[in-house]
């Protein structure tokens, strides 16, 4: 199957510009990047059909090979429709993001940054625990469960204490 250089060049250029726009902070440029990538893929699908052929309108006279390959055309049509619907949805997101926070930026996830900068001290693991030598609270403040936290004995368990 011979390769059409023009298509390849167009596709390459569209991909390059699309990716450049995609990695942008501004949401509008990201959406434009996505639209451009979708167009580039349509060109790729078209080129897989091989050569330029007659329009796929059947009539008995024409040999089967002369038509332009109808299957990639069906794929391209589906791809156009899907990229249209995704673009429409992204426009809704851009407007909503503008209404909510007056900015058209792709925002970073603040939870990630908070987790990455959290301190390693964790009360549950590292807090100092007083040693208690009994399970039963003295009768006067006995609430229903035996052995509430009562630091009575100061038995020095050598390695427990930090």
């Amino acid at each position: 199957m011979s390769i059409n250089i023009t298509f390849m060049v167009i596709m390459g250029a569209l991909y390059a510009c699309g990716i450049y726009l995609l990695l942008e902070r501004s949401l509008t440029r990201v959406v434009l990047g996505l639209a451009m990538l979708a167009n580039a893929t349509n060109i790729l699908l078209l080129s897989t059909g091989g050569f330029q052929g007659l329009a796929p309108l059947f009539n008995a006279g024409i040999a089967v090979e002369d038509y332009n390959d109808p299957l990639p055309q069906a794929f391209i049509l589906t791809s156009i429709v899907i990229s249209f619907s995704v673009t429409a949805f992204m426009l809704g997101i851009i407007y909503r993001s503008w209404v909510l926070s007056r900015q058209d930026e792709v925002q970073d996830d603040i939870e990630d940054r908070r987790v990455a900068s959290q301190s390693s001290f964790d009360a549950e693991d590292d807090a100092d625990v007083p040693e208690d030598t009994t399970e039963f609270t003295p009768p006067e403040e006995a609430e229903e469960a035996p052995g509430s936290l009562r630091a009575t004995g100061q038995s020095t368990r050598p390695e427990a204490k930090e």
Partner: protein
Amino acid sequence: MIIPWIPDLRVELAFRMDTLAAVLSILILGVGSLVLFYCARYFRPGDAQMGAFGSQLLAFAAAMFGLVTADDLILLFIFWEITTVLSYLLIGYSAHRLSARRAALQALIVTTFGGLTMLVGMVLIGDAAGTLRISEILAMAPQLLERGAVIDVAIALMLVGAVSKSALLPFHFWLPAAMAAPTPVSAYLHAAAMVKAGIYLVARLAPGFSESAYWHGVVLVLGLATMLLGGWRALRQYDLKLILAYGTVSQLGFLTLVVGLGNREAAVAGLGLLLAHGFFKATLFLVVGIVDHQAGTRDIRKLSGIHRSAPKLFIVALIGAASMAGIPPLLGFVAKESVYETFVHYAEKQGTAGAAVLLAGVVIGSILTFAYSARFVWGGFATKANCQPTAFKRVPWSFLAAPGVLAAVTVIFGLWPKPLDAAIASYADLYPADGDPTHLALWHGFTTALLLTVITIGAGVLLFLQRNRVEAVQARFTAPLDAERSYRGIIGVLDDVAVWVTGRTQRGSLMFYLFVILSVAVVTPLFALIVRDAPLPSEFHAFDSPLQPVIGVGIILGALAAVRANKRFLAVLMVSVTGYGIALIFALQGAPDLALTQMLVETIVLVAFVLALRSLPARLWQREPAGHRLLRALLGIAFGATMVMIAMTAMASRVAEPISLAFPNLAYEVGGGENIVNVTLVDVRAWDTFGELSVLAMAATGVASLIFIRGRGDKRRRAEGVATGSVDRGREHFASSGRQEATLALARKFSSVSRDAWLVAGRTLAPERRSIIFEVVTRLLFHSVILFSIYLLLAGHNMPGGGFAGGLMAGLALTIRYLAGGRFELAEASPVSAGLLLGGGLGVAGLSAAVPLAFGGQVLQSAIIKFTWPVFGEIKFVTSTIFDIGVYLVVVGLVLDVLRSLGSEIDERSEGVSSDDEETVVPEPDVASREEEEVAR
């Protein structure tokens, strides 16, 4: 008794009861029922958690019973892990105490670590032996051992599980920490049952695998070291329960040592010691429970004079401690005597220095054991000089029953060990009978063993008397390496590594994620092409028709302009230039359907862009322009180049004929239509289009839900109620006496007419927004465009057109009317709400899919109906057109939804007259505060 559970993994519910299992079951069930009996008096009546506690304790007994009787390796592991989880729950009984929670988690993690290592060992052995049945594996143990390294490693891994469960040296720290559990739990789990599981595993594997490479190394060294360390630490404790805890650690080391020695005598002595330890340690723990319950503390510096206030308790405690110390008439002595005999014979037979060290170590260990037994009795019950006798409530009979029975058993079996010996003998038969078989007996005659016992007792008494000096020595000599601190260190390091790794990978920025994904998508195909050679593309042709390069240049220029544009609408325009260019390429390439659809889609996308972005600032300003400009350009170029290279390689490596050659004839004969692409879309591959419809419907709903937030906002407001010229009144304030002011006043005078000549709701628009020419053109065009779209729909089967093109055309018609007459014009133009259109379209498509099933066909099967009408003559109607109508409706619904939400709703919002309760526009600070975000979620 065998019930197959998962044949594919060779796992069955296989049980068998042999001597070893029976001996342990005695311990598990006997001590279990006594402990449960004891609990009735131990807990306060009103405790809410008692229900859960009781069921967990009984479930624990059942799990232990299952563990010892299981004959399938994996079944043993299942019960093993159930005991681990139940011990986690039991230790965490008083969950409000941090020490209990932390001890429970620590015990869970350490024992599960050991358990999982053991699991790997079990899988290795099961894989090597071909079966998971323990009895069969033990039967073919000798052949397995020849396999060499794999089996040795597997056995070593299983030993790690036993070591962690029975709290031997590296993993011993979880047992003393687990003393935070209620005392009955300590008595049962950490003395009689759970920690014995490791010993049981060693005893089960000893007959077959005691000769494996690492066996003696692990069992003997760790056992002895644990025994000595446990004994040494026990001497420093001031809490009665901790003395017993470290005592248990020491005894477990001792037990592993004996059971793991691997000869006939050791087996008998080991089981004897196992039983003895089970009885006396459970007794002592229960006694400590009573002391704690009655006196309110376990600190030996506060307890004094209890032997006088609870004499019966004192006697029971004395018996238990004496048995632990190995004082003659009791079972402890009987067991230790045969252990001494075993090690003496082992030392004589082996004759190596190692065996002698072993014997010496055991003796020293026993001395330490004697010392801390004495410390226990003295600490708990003696009257101390410097503190007054502690108040001690009377011990009711039912409370003392459980330890009493256990003490009695220790005495009876001490004086009369015959039945035990008979029971254990059959387990010992598993070993080859070498020389005189030893027996559990009270009196073995004057043997070196007896001499060793005398030495042990003497040194023990001496050690106890000099306890103050011993404590001074211990205080100076602090432990070099402390297991618990190293465990907590490991967990701390693990947390730090986790935070570090997550910090590196989860940057939170979309650009970083896309960067990683795209670079992986670029690198992997290149890697494939480098590693394996692929065909080099040979035939090329510059272009199919001369026009293509021209359009190509146009497209590339448009793309580059879009990249460099800093005005928002300029960028949008440039992208649509590339879109229209591609529509031209489609037309040239011989795809009329595509060209038509692409052009229509580009137009509507352009309109949608303008509608959505009109409320955003004109400039594509960024506070700080996205960095790594060069890097992004490099990645873009790399991606483009790679895609070109891959495409060329793929096209060059085509060998087979494409299936699409069959399409033309099939489409015409079977599909009954000349437009092959349309037949493909609505008939041959109708299932794809069927899927696409839902994508369209979802996009429409998505846009509506994002703009209207509260549902779809399908309510239509007709034009009558609206005052003329009131919509979208210009708020620009002109200079008061300027010319615009005059023209505006003049226009407003003429706009008072009640009914408009051209558009239904044209009058509602403010005069300065209206353009008469646009309204006249709309009036002329609208109906013809709608007719043309219906033509496209129906003719699509034979001529270029079809559902998509028709729907888009009708959508454009609606767009024109909206742009000409404003939102009320749109409301007038769309009699049906967008939701109804979408639902109707999907319904028509769905039904046209399901109905053929009723007629015996496949889903979405089309049929050709030929009939003749008087006027129109012979008509060929293909049922897939009904499906196409569904497509048409959905596409119109989508365009209507886009217009309604991006157009009318934003108009209303910008005029500030919106009826929906607009969400308060909160100018969010750059980094949303956690609280606010918490509420918003």
